[in-house]
């Protein structure tokens, strides 16, 4: 099952996917209203708890950024202000030289996990969604890198469109990820190339912190990140999870 959270006509709703007769994709609210994608405001598809992100978790991307593979997962945390949903806008500050998307498989925790072994780790997963976790490399500093100014910016982490039940994703360790910028394929990878896979990450994290329902693990991004500019449309796609769309906007949209 796929579920979204959307705002429509003054309230927040749950929604499921809908295919219209003419082949276009839409959604159906829990109360039966049938709508086009563009008629609603898409929110992150679940109540998000702690946001845990992985850096350099694909060997090719680590190489792209000239890093040796890690002995231990590179974990960083993000605050809730970084989040937005499908079809959101992300600001590119004036004068920045390198801002890039990061298409990632997001793993959503469904029940409490504390000191969980690898073999049982996936039992704690509620489902999966797509994440696009933008970074602005101009602001990198070597203190708690990647520092918040790079990776914890308002609206720079999109989740959605759907939360897809774990039962409907039989092989989370074999999903193809693709990112298109203005329709052109720029990033291509597969979760089979994760350095630390999902089971290991849940095992590792739960060895020192209790994971709770709604916590989400952004598992990292493969190679193929390129600079994006105001006006660009960025589409992140993962097999079976859908397409997560975002648009880059400039300072003027935010009155800066």
């Amino acid at each position, binding site marked *: 099952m796929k579920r979204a959270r959307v705002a429509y006509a003054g309230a927040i709703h749950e929604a499921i996917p809908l295919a219209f007769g003419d082949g276009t994709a839409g959604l159906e609210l829990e109360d039966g209203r049938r709508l086009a994608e563009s008629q609603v405001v898409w929110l992150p598809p679940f109540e998000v*708890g*702690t946001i*845990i992100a992985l850096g350099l978790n694909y060997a090719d991307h680590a190489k792209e950024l000239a890093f040796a593979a890690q002995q*231990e997962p*590179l*974990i*960083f*945390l*993000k*605050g*809730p*202000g*970084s989040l937005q949903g499908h079809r959101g806008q992300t600001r590119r500050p004036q004068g920045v030289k390198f801002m890039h998307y990061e298409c990632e498989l997001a793993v959503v925790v469904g029940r409490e996990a504390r000191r969980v072994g690898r073999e049982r780790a996936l039992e704690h997963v509620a489902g999966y969604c797509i994440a696009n976790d933008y970074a602005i490399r101009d*602001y990198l*500093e*070597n*203190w*708690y*890198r*990647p*520092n*918040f*100014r790079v990776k*914890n*910016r*308002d609206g720079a982490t999109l989740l959605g469109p759907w939360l897809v039940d774990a039962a409907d994703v039989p092989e989370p360790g074999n999903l193809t990820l693709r990112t298109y910028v203005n329709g052109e394929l720029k990033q291509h990878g597969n979760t089979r190339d994760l350095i630390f896979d999902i089971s290991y990450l849940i095992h590792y994290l739960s060895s*020192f*912190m*209790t*994971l*709770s329902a709604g916590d989400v693990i952004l598992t990292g991004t493969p190679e193929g990140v390129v600079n994006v500019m105001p006006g660009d449309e960025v589409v992140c796609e993962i097999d079976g999870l859908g397409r997560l769309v975002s648009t880059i906007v400039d300072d003027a949209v935010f009155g*800066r």
Partner: protein
Amino acid sequence: MTPSRVPIAVDVPPYRLSGSVYGVLANHPSLPVMLGDASHRPPYHAPPRAPVLYLKPRNTLAGPGDPVAVPADVPELESAASLGMVIERAACRLEAATALRYVAGFLIVNDVSIPHATYHRPSIRFKARDGFCPLGPAVVATQRVASPDAIEIRTYVDGLLVQRLNTREMIRPIARLLEDVTEFMTLSAGDVLCIGTAAPAPRVRPGQTVTIEIDGIGSLGNPFVRSEP
């Protein structure tokens, strides 16, 4: 108890805490002094320019009196005292001159870590363990705190004074810190932003109790206990 002092509870207005507690690295000059030239060498290459933040996630939050578990494989923990400000309403692109209007009040934060020598990578395994962020005992309204940029913070281990610092020593005072942080991220109502801690932080062994006192804010005590294996 007066109305401006309410117990720490995430659901009690007007100081409903969001559960996001942000710390800031090296806002007290003691860490730069301790690191010395190392700040200019790899892996750092240069001292921090913008505020360097970290998040204490919801699993770390604890209240007054809650025991702090010392993991079985470490002899002691660091207990770093900080003044925490509780954000009153959405704080985006604040100006220092008016930033304090966005602060509902103040509380005490005990930022607990497993001792570690490097600040190059986020230290989640060392800083984000369950119960590693006791805070409280209450939020004291901003209007009742005369000079938040000049108050003393004292840490006692088993009653013995082990650290004393003053918020006036901070590199970025409260208003400036708010301006520089909200330039790149919005703080929301109930978020806690800590003003910074002094290095080296006091070390605490299982069986000891840490009490942090901040003038005008109160006192926060937590026993440290050996974790169950």
